[in-house]
């Protein structure tokens, strides 16, 4: 075996050990905060794993969502758990569950090993589907096969996924609104030093990188999902820095942003029946422009939904930094 292969294998082994150790720490460790941090690092290691397994598209999404937004959500949960706990209660106690440990451990191991064995014995010669997908992708008007699967071959999945996103947001909003729970992050009176500078630097970079990922999605790793995740992460930062103020007033822009993806996609599904026998087929002419338009709407909706899911409020208002001559709004 050449040296480079040996090094790569060594790296893989380290990666796998790291993943397992972090997952174990996240699940069995004491202290919720510690677990959440372990889980976030686990997400970053997962991003490296996706890149290693030849899926840069997933690596991008995982780094922004798995480590970033999920981590921020879980940290939120830590904060909520501490601030909403009754004073006489031990924070986040963990009782013995109904399943004893001596049973749970072999049971889980058996399930995991059995699953691994099953997955390993699946024939890898592909069968008809991957071959067809790869062949079709070669002549497709989009050069990134993953984007063509998402927006053409399996567009129905993506359409329904947008519906799931919207449903999750509506559900979370109903649950949190009903109880009139206090805001987790009261808006600070005056901004922290240095944070506005970091935002000023990172805002244009993340915005342009998001747009780049959107543009690249048709021929290189990227697309609406990765771009939306990145812009969503930027929105979460704005919220944490107190620049997006949560309100319970319905906002037109907010409502438009969260529904435009599903709306435009559904409209396309209906209209496509005019030129094709099945919904969600692309027309001969202008398919590329159409995909870009739908992807742009998806990107906006994914970003806005992720931010609002993080905040759990009805809508957000921009608060400009107070020291700007433009004044506050």
């Amino acid at each position: 075996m050449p040296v480079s292969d040996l090094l790569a294998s060594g790296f893989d082994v380290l990666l796998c050990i790291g993943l397992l150790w972090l997952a174990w720490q996240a699940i069995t460790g004491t202290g919720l905060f510690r677990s959440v941090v372990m889980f976030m690092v686990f997400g970053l290691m997962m991003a490296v794993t996706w890149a290693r397994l030849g899926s840069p598209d997933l690596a991008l999404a995982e780094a922004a969502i798995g480590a970033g937004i999920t981590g921020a959500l879980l940290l939120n949960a830590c904060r909520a758990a501490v601030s909403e706990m009754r004073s006489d209660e031990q924070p986040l106690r963990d009782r013995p569950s109904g399943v004893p440990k001596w049973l749970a451990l072999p049971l889980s191991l058996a399930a995991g090993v059995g699953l691994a064995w099953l997955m390993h014995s699946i024939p890898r010669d592909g069968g008809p589907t991957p071959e067809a997908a790869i062949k079709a992708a070669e002549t497709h008007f989009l050069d990134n096969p993953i984007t063509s699967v998402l927006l053409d071959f399996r567009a129905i999945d993506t359409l329904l996924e947008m519906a799931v996103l919207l449903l999750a947001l509506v559900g979370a909003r109903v649950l949190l609104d009903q109880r009139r729970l206090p805001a987790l992050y009261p808006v600070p009176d005056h901004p922290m030093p240095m944070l506005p500078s970091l935002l000023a630097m990172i805002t244009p970079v993340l915005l342009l990188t998001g747009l780049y990922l959107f543009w690249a999605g048709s021929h290189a790793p990227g697309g609406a999902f990765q771009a939306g995740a990145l812009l969503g992460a930027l929105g979460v930062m704005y919220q944490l820095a107190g620049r997006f103020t949560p309100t319970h007033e319905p906002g037109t822009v907010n409502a438009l942003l969260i529904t435009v993806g599903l709306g435009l996609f559904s409209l396309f599904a209906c209209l496509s029946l005019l030129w094709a026998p099945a919904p969600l087929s692309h027309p001969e002419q202008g398919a590329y422009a159409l995909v870009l338009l739908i992807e742009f709407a998806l990107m906006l909706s994914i970003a806005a939904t992720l931010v609002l899911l993080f905040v759990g409020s009805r809508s957000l208002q921009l608060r400009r930094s107070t020291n700007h001559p433009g004044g506050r709004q």
Partner: protein
Amino acid sequence: MTGWLFSVTAGLLFAIGLYGVLIRTELVRRLLAANVMATAVFLFLIVVAAETPDGPDPVPQAMVLTGIVIAVSLTAFALALIRHFRAVTGESDPEGGDDD
């Protein structure tokens, strides 16, 4: 070698996640464990995709991409449920309400 290694890792990750779901009663931790299980399933799919002879199979990759976004939205929804549950009952786990 690579495929075998990552298959076994995915299996063990699935086991760790399942163990967490079974053992931990505190809800946020249980949700975290369920997330680890989801990641293990994604890893299985991508290992299969990576080993397809004609190059990486885009279908599982697209499925996992969708799955990652679904997983985060479900996590957010579940956390809202947990907060709601805690506000209603004052408990942090559903099974411990009867002994105090």
